[in-house]
C-alpha cells in the first residue's frame, strides 16, 4: 500500500488532464493530451530521432560535468588541504562565483560561436562551483581528532588522505555532486534552447517552429526524466558509499 500511495496524485492529475483534453476544456495548441504526447514519443522513438538527441544532450552534459567537476574537485581538495593554495586562489574563485554563469552566454557565444564548446563550457562553469565549494568544505570539516590519530599511528600522507581525509569529506562531496547535477541539466537546457542544431533543446525549439506542441511537451518531459535519472543514480551511489553513516543507510 505504501508503495502505491505516492503514485495516486500523479495518476489523478494525468487522468484529469486527459479528460480535460478529450472534452475540449484544454485546447490542444495550449497543452496537448497525454495520449498525443505519448504518440509523439512513439514516433520520435521509432524514427530514432529521440535517442540520437538524448545521446547528444547527455554527451554534452556529462563531458561538461566531467571537466567542471574534475577541476572543482581538484581545486577543492587543494584548497582544503593547503592554506597556501587557498590564500592564492580562494578569494578570486569566490569573486567569480558571484557572477551567474548564465549571464556569460553572450560572451560565450562571441568566444566559441554556437558550437559544442560553448555549451560544454557553460555546463563546466556551472558545475564547477558547487563541487568546488562542497569538496573544500568537506575536507575542512574532517575531524581533526581522527587526523591526529592517523598521525600517531604512523600513517603516511598518502594513507592519511585515502583512509581519513577522502572518506571524511565524501558526504559533503556528494551534496556538491547532486547539486552540480541539477545545475548541469539546467545549464544545458538554456544553452540548447538558445543555440543548437541537435539535442533535446533543439528538438523542442524545432517543434515550436512547426507548432508541434506535443513534441515540445515531450522534450520537457525527457529533460525531467534525465534529471531524475541522474539524481537517482547519485543517491544510489551515496547510499552505497556512505553505508557506514546511519543517516544515509536508512533512507
Amino acid at each position, binding site marked *: 500500500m505504501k508503495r502505491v500511495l505516492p503514485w495516486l496524485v500523479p495518476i489523478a492529475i494525468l487522468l484529469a488532464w486527459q479528460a480535460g483534453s478529450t472534452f475540449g476544456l484544454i485546447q490542444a495548441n495550449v497543452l496537448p493530451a497525454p495520449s498525443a504526447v505519448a504518440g509523439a514519443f512513439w514516433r520520435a522513438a521509432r524514427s530514432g530521432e529521440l535517442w540520437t538527441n538524448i545521446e547528444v544532450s547527455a554527451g554534452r552534459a556529462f563531458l561538461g560535468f566531467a571537466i567542471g567537476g574534475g577541476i572543482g574537485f581538484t581545486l577543492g581538495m587543494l584548497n582544503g588541504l593547503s592554506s597556501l593554495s587557498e590564500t592564492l586562489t580562494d578569494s578570486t574563485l569566490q569573486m567569480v562565483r558571484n557572477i551567474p554563469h548564465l549571464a556569460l552566454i553572450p560572451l560565450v557565444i562571441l568566444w566559441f560561436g554556437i558550437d559544442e564548446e560553448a555549451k560544454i563550457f557553460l555546463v563546466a562553469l556551472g558545475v564547477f562551483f558547487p563541487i568546488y565549494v562542497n569538496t573544500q568544505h568537506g575536507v575542512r570539516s574532517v575531524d581533526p*581528532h*581522527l587526523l*591526529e590519530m592517523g*598521525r600517531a*599511528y*604512523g*600513517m603516511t600522507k598518502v594513507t592519511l588522505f585515502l583512509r581519513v581525509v577522502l572518506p571524511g569529506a*565524501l558526504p559533503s562531496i556528494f551534496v556538491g555532486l547532486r547539486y552540480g547535477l541539477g545545475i548541469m541539466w539546467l545549464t544545458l537546457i538554456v544553452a540548447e534552447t538558445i543555440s543548437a542544431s541537435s539535442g533535446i533543446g533543439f528538438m523542442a525549439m524545432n517543434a515550436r517552429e512547426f507548432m508541434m506542441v506535443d513534441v515540445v511537451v515531450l522534450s520537457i518531459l525527457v529533460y525531467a526524466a534525465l534529471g531524475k535519472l541522474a539524481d537517482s543514480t547519485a543517491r544510489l551511489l551515496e547510499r552505497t558509499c556512505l553505508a*557506514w553513516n*546511519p543517516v544515509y543507510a536508512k533512507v
Partner: protein
Amino acid sequence: MSIDVIDRVSTPDLRVSVTGAEVKLQGVTKSFGDHRVLRGIDLAIEPGQFVAIVGRSGCGKSTLLRLVAGLDAPTSGSIALDQQTTGWRDVVRLMFQESRLLPWQRVAANVAVGLTHAHDRQSQRDQAAVALREVGLAGRENAWPSVLSGGQKQRVALARALVSHPRLLLLDEPLGALDALTRIEMQELIERVWQQKGFTAVVVTHDVSEAVTLADRILLLDDGAVMLDVPVDLPRPRRRGDREAAAIEGRILDRLLQR
C-alpha cells in the same frame, strides 16, 4: 635450521608478549608561546611498570603524554625509550579519551589501522581478529563503529592500540567518557592485558581512585612539575574500598585539594 626460521616467520605466534620499554625523561620542558606548560621534568620509568599521572585540568599531564607519544617535540630536554631518542614511533601506542575510530571502516579495518606497516591483508585480518578476541569482541569484525556502545568502541580502540604489540602503551583519560560500570570493566580489562603482555603503561587520569586501582606508581603533576611520586605496592587484583588503597587515595586527594 633455515627451514625452521622461515617456518616461524610465516606462521608467527599471534599471542605475543613483549618486554616493556624503559622510559627516561631528562629536564623536559614545553612552552606554548610564553606559557610554560612543563617545567623541567625528570622521570625514569622501569620496563613493565604501570604509571598513573594525576593532576588538575591544565597541569600539563596530557602535554607530557603527547611528548612521550612523539606527537609533539619538547622545547628542551630529552625523552629516551630504551636509551633511544628517535625511531621509536612504532614501539609506542596511544589511546585517547574518545575512541577515534574511523566511522567509515568496519571494526576489523579499524583495528588494522594499528598495523599500518604490515602489508599482508590476510595476516592483518588474522591479527585484528586475535586482538578483538583479547578485548572480548570476538566476532564483531564486520560491525560498523556507529552500532557499537561507548564501551565497545573503547574496546576496539584498545584492540587497535594492542594489535601491533607495543612496548609502551599510553592512555590519555581513556575511560573518562564511560559510565561507572563500563569503567570498572574496562579497568579490569586493561589490567589483565597489561599483566598478560608485560608492556610499560602510562595512564593519564583525573580519577585518583582509578589511578590507585591500576598503577604501580602514581605521579602527581602540578603546575608543570612532579609534586608527588607515590609507589602503590598493593596486591592485585585490588579491591575497591580497601583500607590501604583508601589511605593512598586520601593522601593524594589532600595534596590535590591543598588541604
